[in-house]
């Protein structure tokens, strides 16, 4: 039986209303933009790297609760991680929210990000949850084009 709280958990509501790391990083090394035109979700992800590690991560943008909370929780999880660890986290998050994958990563591997497990039952909202992550990847790879998950 579907329950609204399975998708809209307290942590998601909290992060959507009070997003963390919600500022433009003026001295960032990397940044990228994401935009889903059909639903209007917009995000810019900023990164400051020290060597191979993420020293600071922040974002700006506007959109639905899922996309905002996803960006907020993402920036919290990135600090101190190496690029390889960030990529692994991206893959695990993608697996978590995509219905096609039968293996759900353990909560211990994802920490707070596991709160998005409800998204897998709402395929239409997967793009909202993954927009910030795809934008993050684009920031690390340094492409320059605006990312979309639509």
């Amino acid at each position, binding site marked *: *039986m*579907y*329950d*609204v*709280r399975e*998708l*809209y958990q307290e942590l998601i*509501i909290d992060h959507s*209303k009070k997003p963390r790391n919600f500022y433009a990083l003026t001295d960032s090394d990397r940044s990228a933009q994401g935009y889903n035109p*059909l*639903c*209007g979700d917009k995000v810019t992800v900023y990164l400051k790297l020290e060597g191979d590690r993420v020293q600071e991560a922040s974002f700006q943008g*506007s*959109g*639905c*609760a*899922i996309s905002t909370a996803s960006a907020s929780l993402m920036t919290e999880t990135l600090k101190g991680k190496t690029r390889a660890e960030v990529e692994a986290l991206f893959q695990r998050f993608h697996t978590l929210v995509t219905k096609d994958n039968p293996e759900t990563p353990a909560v211990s591997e994802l920490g707070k990000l596991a709160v998005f497990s409800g998204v897998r039952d*709402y395929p*239409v*909202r997967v793009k*909202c949850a993954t927009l910030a992550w795809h934008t993050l990847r684009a920031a690390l790879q340094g492409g320059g084009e605006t990312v979309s998950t639509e």
Partner: protein
Amino acid sequence: MSAARDLSLRAVRAAPPLSFDVSRIREDFPVLKQKVHGKPLVYLDNAATSQKPQVVLDALHRFYAADCSNVHRGVHQLSERATKDYEESRSTLQCFINAADHREIVFVRGTSEAINLVAQSYGRSHVCAGNEILITAMEHHSNIVPWQILCEEKGARLRVAPINDAGELLLDEFEKLLNDRTRFVSVAHVSNALGTINPVRQIIEMAHRWKVPVLLDGAQAAPHLPVDVQELDCEFYAFSSHKLYGPTGIGVLYGKASLLEAMAPYQSGGEMISSVTFEKTLYKNPPYRFEAGTPNIAGTIGFAAAIDYVNQIGLKRIGAYEHELLAYATQVLSQIPGVRLIGTAKHKAGILSFIVEGVHAHDVGTILDLEGVAVRTGHHCAQPTMARFGVPATARVSLAFYNTREEVDVLVAGIRKVTEVFG
């Protein structure tokens, strides 16, 4: 008489005179019986597409099961039956909007194609550099983009008549925008995003003073209020089957005979020609000139069955019921703290766009979906309208004559749940 048409007419004649018995009407729509996320479906997305009564489903099935043949060619039995039903459907549509002649009914895929046809076939030969085309600030993209493309192609200018904060056309401003450079006016009869019913008689009168032809986008109007194209005196009228309880992929462009006769073909190929040689090809008269290729035969017959069904109930009765339901829905939605209605014109059809303060429309839509309630969220193919009201998106409720007050109550409970979840 084909099996499909016969069945449809017998159903109409056999039905007893109705007072508005919505629970009886709901039994005609099989799709309404289902559950969504364990809750009864509350379908409030009729402006996106409407549900289909059993007689329409039967008409579609019977065409393919008993009368399936191509039309206008062939001397065999099935072809004759299919052709008869197809052309009778044209007469049904003619009567529905009180067109003077069945040849003024062109079958197209839908309202978008109808407008594209006029923009290309009429617009290209009547609009030149320096001319103007006038639309309004509340149009659907299908009544904006074809004109933008035409203006760019011809070096003409697109003018946009403004609307007020209630979503009503500023008629004075509209009139000021008419001048001797205006070559076409294209306006929504009813706004899909706001529900506003435009003062189309006055619009047409004003345009005609400047000898400017008018197209009315009737996609959201034809299902909900009686349309009489002779009385309106519009040059073109466009509407779709799938919003009128009929199948997708079929719609009507009404055009005054004198204009259609002077218009060049839109799409070309089979069916729209009278003779083809490599030296010269001659085209058919309207409406066939504009109907290239094998038509959506089943769709046309299904559309006519939907019209018969609606006529059986009566558009005036449907309009009155929906009007009452709209009044109720407007009243109860306005009472929810945090809900802002977008589109509060004095004269509206059964469309309510709204936002919940601090909550994105998609989150509203998802939570409502969990309660079994289907609404549409987004920009509704009316991005300029959204921008006019300073919102990225709205949630839109659109009513039909099979919706009930109880369903509106479920919607309200769902919206209250949204405000609860988002604190």
